[in-house]
């Protein structure tokens, strides 16, 4: 199969680009891992469910608008429940064969060739490592939210949220409204930090809907007497076979956790909400140039004003360019759509520039809001590293503890690179392929070796982007083996 444009990810960025591609008559295939388009922010309920009044909040309006018509049969081909395992670039190949994707749909693999590719894979919740962080019941706040939004399931009884990102207020509110209990919402920041966001007049004027939504969620939680803690964070999760309670402790004015201030809160689910990491694996696999952004998603991908990477015909949009939220993602998706139409000569340069103008203004505004939010919500290395006690698991898959890793670095003073540290320690060698430890390995290496995080190259992103059973690759069996 081949196509003019392959879009990887049917979230806000991918959908916005697909809309423009369809309007310009570009032959497009949209690949997404979920059953229905929408991405994480508007993860739709299964087609077999009938849900009234789904995602009523005003902040969901722009993405819900994009969903109208998405996924329906038409000129655009939608490939749901499909993972891109490999993305390869052949600079010498003629246009429709320039990019080659290997796809996996429920164990059936197939190849797709494309002239242009847009990578819009979004992000995932930043993992945070502390004693007990791998106990069943400790979950990403975004994971909890997806159960509510999409599966219409309250995935536990009594929820505690800890983090530094205001999203946790929204998830806590959604749990309450669905009928669950919320034991508390714990912010690492001081109350004044959150307050400064809420009282920022320019933000209210331009992003009123979002600010009102946040404020309303906060008010509903307060009315239900949900405790909201500030200058506190999680220090340990306890439980025998599953989460039973959580210790939180105060953070002093110097940013140091006060061990003496521990207090214990009963809960069977802990939502972790410290921000997000960009899913840049496929872009790194194909060799697109990127850079490090500690606050903006870890390893992110560089692009020009039309969202083109340094590889011809390869575009990026959304969180992969730096975590900035759905509004910015939609703008970037549109710009990428126009950029691709421009490259494929489906629009002339002057018209593209004219059409992009308004989107660029909107993007600037969305990025302004996103920058404020990142400033507020980035927990900082100092806090994250205090949580990582010696016995906590740096690599949950291979069960490499912080102490194991530190010992490895101490015994091998010549190692000062993430890939070399992975090879030696096994941290990052498991099923999640380093997605849940690479960010912390960069921090630990930088601290131990006195180098800057941005100088540390990311893990080599390998094929397959997500592990799959070997039998899924045997369908391509070549009987003419040497």
């Amino acid at each position, binding site marked *: 199969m081949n196509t003019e444009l392959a879009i990887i990810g049917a979230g806000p960025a991918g959908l916005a680009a697909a809309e423009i591609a369809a309007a310009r008559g570009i032959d497009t295939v949209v690949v997404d891992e979920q059953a229905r388009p929408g991405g994480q922010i508007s993860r739709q309920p299964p087609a077999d469910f009938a849900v009234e009044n789904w995602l009523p909040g005003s902040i969901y309006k722009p993405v819900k608008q994009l969903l109208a018509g998405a996924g329906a049969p038409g000129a655009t081909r939608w490939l749901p429940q499909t993972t891109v395992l*490999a993305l*390869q670039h052949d600079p010498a190949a003629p246009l429709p064969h320039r990019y*080659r994707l*290997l796809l996996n749909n429920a164990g059936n693999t197939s190849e797709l060739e494309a002239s242009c590719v847009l990578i819009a894979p979004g992000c995932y919740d930043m993992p945070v490592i502390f004693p007990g962080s791998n106990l069943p019941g400790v979950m990403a706040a975004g994971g909890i939210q997806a159960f509510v939004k999409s599966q219409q399931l309250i995935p536990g009884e009594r929820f505690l949220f800890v983090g530094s990102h205001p999203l946790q207020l929204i998830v806590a509110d959604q749990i309450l409204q669905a009928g669950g209990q919320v034991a508390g919402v714990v912010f690492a920041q001081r109350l004044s930090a959150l307050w400064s966001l809420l009282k920022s007049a320019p933000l209210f004027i331009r992003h009123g809907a979002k600010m009102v939504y946040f404020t309303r969620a906060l008010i509903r939680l307060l009315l239900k007497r949900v405790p909201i803690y500030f200058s506190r964070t999680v220090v340990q999760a306890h439980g025998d076979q599953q989460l039973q309670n959580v210790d939180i402790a105060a953070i002093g004015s110097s940013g140091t956790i006060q061990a003496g201030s521990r207090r214990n809160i009963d809960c069977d689910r802990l939502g972790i909400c410290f921000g997000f990491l960009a899913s840049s694996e496929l872009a790194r696999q194909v060799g697109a140039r990127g850079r490090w952004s500690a606050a903006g998603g870890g390893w992110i991908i560089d692009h020009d004003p039309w969202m083109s990477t340094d590889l011809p015909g390869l575009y990026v949009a959304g969180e992969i360019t730096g975590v900035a939220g759905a509004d910015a993602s939609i703008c970037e998706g549109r710009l990428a759509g126009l950029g691709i139409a421009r490259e494929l000569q489906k629009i002339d340069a002057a018209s593209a520039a004219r059409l992009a103008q308004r989107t660029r203004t909107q993007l600037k505004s969305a990025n302004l809001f996103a920058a404020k939010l990142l400033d507020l919500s980035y927990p900082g290395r100092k806090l994250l590293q205090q949580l990582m006690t010696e016995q906590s698991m740096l690599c949950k898959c*291979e069960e490499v503890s912080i102490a194991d890793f530190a010992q490895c670095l101490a*015994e*091998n*003073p*010549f*190692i*000062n*690179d993430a*890939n*070399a540290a992975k*090879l*030696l320690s*096994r941290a990052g*060698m*498991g*099923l999640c*392929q380093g997605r849940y430890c690479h960010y912390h390995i960069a921090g630990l290496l930088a601290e131990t070796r006195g180098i800057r995080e941005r*100088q540390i190259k990311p893990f*080599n992103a*390998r*094929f*397959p982007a997500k*592990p*799959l*059973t*070997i*039998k899924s*690759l*045997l369908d*391509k*069996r*070549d009987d003419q*083996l*040497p």
Partner: protein
Amino acid sequence: MQSCDIAVIGGGLVGCATACYLSAAGARVAVIERGQINQGASGQNAGSLHFQLEYRLIQHKDKLAAELEHYVALTKIAIAQWRGLETELGCNLELAMHGGLMVAETPEQLQLLQQKAEIESRQGLDVELLDKPQLRRRAPYLSDSIIAALFCPPEGHCNPRLLTPAYAQKAIANGTAVYTRCSVDSIQRRCGKWHIGIGGQAAQACGGKLAADKVLNAAGAWSGEIAAMANLHLPIFPVGLTMNATERTGPLIPHLVQHVGRKLSMKQVDDGNVLIGGGWSAHLQQRQGKWKSDSAPTINMQSVYSNLSTAAAVIPAIESLHLLRTWTGTTGVTPDQLPILGEISQAPGFYVAAGGSGFTYGPSYARQMSELILSGKTSFPIDAYSPNRFGHINMFMG
């Protein structure tokens, strides 16, 4: 300017191990590595200890008769060295010498195994031909399609993650200076000394240059580029290879498994992952018509499918394991497939250790090279591997 007795270029297995042996004997040694220790083929290969003759060597058995004799003699030395290596280095290398099987699926392949067994036994290598009922007992994980296998008891595997760093640690303990993220930019001989210009991110660690009485070029696939800096030719060529690792699983494959007629090597490491390789190609990247020495080769998907299909045909149970990752590495091959070990006669004090089966024989190459560099003599004859067998290409160089 820093100075040392011997500058070792390349922080792979052969470089680190030779540095370890040299410094243990009291020499002042510096290892210069462009990237990280164990970053190249030494850390990327599959860690096979294969002592049986490979199929490609058997093919030319008449022409190579003398070489085979020498090869088996070296193999015996290597086996002895491997057996003592964990004690020697004082650490766990995940060394497993539980035997290796070279399997056959067809009568023609069986015939090859029989010929091979005959040659190997004559040379004194311990091998045993196992028929199907014997295989069922000793290797029940093998597919029903395997009709026989040649068993070589000392074969096995060692974890390449651990071996080179263990040598590097020991070398440092012996006083070796290790400079990583330092590239060699120039090599000049002046007043009886080798002067090495050093660049790269961490060049300031050794002041940007190094003077040495002797140089060992142990830069693997890239040792040709290093030799060129000293105005020498070295016939070693980079090739890209593919490797695959499955997720961890319980004990399944105690042996090293190879195939006499197809490209395959398989083993299970201590952590439970199954490593699958066997010489499937990957694409070397180019920049302006030259091989890119600083980028890993790109994956050839057909190589991956074929490698996994071959593996599943031999050990069907792997089909339900997840493929965790496929990676590529670059190794160096010489025109006669033998290693290049020795001093280049046109450039006194310039030594080379590259090519050959660099993992299986790496510790042995290193030991012989350290003897040669220190005393001019070796305990095992390595003249057959001397760079001077290609001497005519350096007739006007040096």
